[in-house]
């Protein structure tokens, strides 16, 4: 494309220089086209300007379509997929934690399962399945497709093992605990990592789409093309003025005005879209991704906390995992929560993100108490502290942590959505507009020069 524009530019420059060296034979171009008389030069100018206008229209429309598709990807597919991945993770993780607590509290509350346990578990599974469906529709043949296939294949295996665990539990069989562990291992080893990948891949896709919609190289191509066309129109009009001593050529004036209008429209639309999409990134998708990562880690730590208490064989895998996740989650320099708070700065998520960070610290304190109770044989007190909903219980604190992160995510998701849609809407009508304006320019140039040519016949 640039080489075509360059050739056109050289041709026009050669033509417009022609009058000054009227006598000289123009070595290369002049020899080639033999434009030695004014009508011949006018004819050449006509062809050059019209093709230049058409090329300009094509280049501008191409650049606009690239950007518009990037912007539309940002606002639609990537967003859906990323959100679905995260919702699948949260639903599955909550299902697993609910099943674990149901087992933990058996006998403590006087009933086999907490009253709302099965309902909540089933709601979680239904939610995961619904998001799985919409994610599969959005993913197409992207990298996320393999992870979605894993989820579709293994989710029924998981729920099957959970049902067996539940049935065995109801019969009072210790085998139920083994099925619970088996299901949980599948969840943590296969299902949750797949759900995490979907979000990660969607974020990569989002970054790509956002780059296409806001990248500078394409804008530079457009600018170079505009400069070439503008320069050509200017030189053509100056040459005509000198040659014919008429101040204005209406056709070329119309072409110039149309060119200016399209340039202004392009500038404003691309600029606005870029500003909006960058806003969507800095105050939308970036903090959302950081917050989502923190939320996923928090959910994982919570599941660890419950499973540590069930683990009938007393090995400390889950506690070790909790400690590892706690280190990643923070707050503290370089941790997920602190990164999320930093990323959320200046967005509506700032408040909830800070609350989340503070709550996490309190929760860790309670978790230490839980561990020391459990290590000192006070298993029941430990369970009550973990599952309890009263003030200062781990259950309450985690709900607050998770709730703050979720509302922070929703707040910045809204910011993202608003800006992404605005960024996409900036392109409405632009592609057709630049094509129509380029045609007007071409017709203007043709009309203006044909009128001049007619004077020689």
């Amino acid at each position, binding site marked *: 494309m640039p080489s075509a524009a360059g050739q056109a530019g050289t041709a026009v420059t050669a033509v417009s220089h022609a009058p000054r060296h009227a006598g000289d034979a123009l070595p290369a171009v002049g020899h080639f086209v033999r434009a030695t008389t004014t009508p011949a030069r006018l004819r050449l100018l006509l062809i050059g300007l019209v093709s230049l206008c058409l090329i300009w229209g094509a280049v501008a429309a191409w650049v606009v379509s690239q950007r518009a598709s990037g912007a539309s990807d940002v606002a639609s597919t990537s967003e859906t997929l990323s959100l679905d991945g995260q919702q699948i993770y949260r639903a599955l993780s909550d299902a697993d934690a609910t099943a674990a607590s149901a087992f933990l509290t058996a*006998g403590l509350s006087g009933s086999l399962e907490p009253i709302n346990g099965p309902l909540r578990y089933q709601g979680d599974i239904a939610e995961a399945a619904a998001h799985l469906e919409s994610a599969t529709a959005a993913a197409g043949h992207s990298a996320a497709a393999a992870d979605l296939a894993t989820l579709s294949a293994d989710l029924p295996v998981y729920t099957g093992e959970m049902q067996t665990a539940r049935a065995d539990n109801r019969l009072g069989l210790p085998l139920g605990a083994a099925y619970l562990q088996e299901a949980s291992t599948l969840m943590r080893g296969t299902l949750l990592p797949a759900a995490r990948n979907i979000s990660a891949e969607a974020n990569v896709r989002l970054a790509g789409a956002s780059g296409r919609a806001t990248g500078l190289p394409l804008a530079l191509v457009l600018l170079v093309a505009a400069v070439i066309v503008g320069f050509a129109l200017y030189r053509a009009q100056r040459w005509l003025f000198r040659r014919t001593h008429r101040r204005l050529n209406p056709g070329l004036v119309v072409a110039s005005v149309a060119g200016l209008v399209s340039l202004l429209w392009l500038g404003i639309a691309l600029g606005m879209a870029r500003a909006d999409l960058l806003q969507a990134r800095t105050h939308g998708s970036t903090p959302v991704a950081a917050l989502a990562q923190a939320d996923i880690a928090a959910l994982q730590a919570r599941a660890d906390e419950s499973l540590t208490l069930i683990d009938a*064989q007393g090995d400390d895998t889950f506690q070790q995992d909790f400690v590892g996740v706690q280190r990643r989650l923070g707050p503290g320099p370089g941790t997920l929560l602190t990164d999320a708070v930093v990323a959320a700065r200046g967005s509506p998520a700032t408040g909830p993100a800070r609350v989340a960070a503070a709550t996490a610290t309190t929760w860790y304190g309670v978790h230490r108490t839980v561990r020391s109770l459990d290590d000192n044989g006070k298993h029941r007190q430990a369970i009550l502290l973990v599952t309890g909903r009263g003030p200062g219980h781990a259950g309450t604190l985690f709900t607050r942590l998770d709730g703050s992160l979720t509302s922070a995510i929703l707040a910045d998701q809204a910011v993202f959505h608003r800006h992404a849609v605005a960024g996409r809407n900036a392109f409405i009508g632009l592609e057709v507009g630049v094509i129509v304006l380029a045609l007007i320019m071409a017709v203007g140039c043709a009309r203006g020069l044909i009128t001049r040519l007619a004077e020689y016949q």
Partner: protein
Amino acid sequence: MLLVAAATAWALPGSAVVAARQYLPGPAAAPAIPPCDRAHSSLRPTGPPRVTPGSFMEQIRDHHRLIAGVSQSTYPFGFFNPRNGNTEGFDIDIVHAIAKAIFGNRNQVEFKAIPDDRRIPEVWSGGVDIVAHTMTINCLRLEKVDFSTVYFQAGAQVLVLKNSRVKRLKDLRGKKVCSTSGSDSLSYIKAAHAIAVPVVNFTDCLVKLQQGDVAAISTDDNILAGLAAQDPWTKIVGRVFTSEPYGLAISKMHPEFVRFVNAVLQQMRTDGQWTADYRRWVGTPAPAPPRARYKD
């Protein structure tokens, strides 16, 4: 099928020798294990159980609880009852009896769930005061910890699905057989040229059997009976082919506690408590309790 039959016939003599070897005490069992008399391995009590000043029992009393390393997944010896959230079983009731002898209260116990391969390390580190965990007294273990007198006599068998054609361990040559890591079952599974699949809990073995991941489970008959009770579509096959006398493991640093525990066991044998526990957890009719034998 033909191939399996041929393999079985071919395997017969060798495996029989291997299986028979398990019974033999002394050098034939395994070169690494020193010879010992595991039937006469414990310390004689000095009368009825009594918490003497300066003894380990007094230390336990000062800590207000007896810490016992148990299984929470070996029905019906030590298991977590999902209906009431309690740890229960035959092993557990023996721990309760010891707690009653120390505190006068059977519930002053902390049950610490430990996997099979943590039983000796927990005794060594002092993480638990006693291990009551379907633990076989053998010569290798006697080098490391002290055992009480035998409180239960078990022996290895094989558990398969009802429709299985397997009749004994040697039919399982080349097939996957599940047991727990850290149990002595793994060694005879390997000796029978079966593929040993180690897991953490025996209930994990049952999950694998139900899901078709393994062809059989092999461990002590009483544990297999506990698994079969949880799945009516399984059966125990073949004869008992090892002798597994269970003892409670205690650190070698506390011989007075070994004598104390033996006194409690002796009481249980004579006052009918052992028989009542057996009937409650294992079934009827209850055999006579294993006789107490001492080093001296």
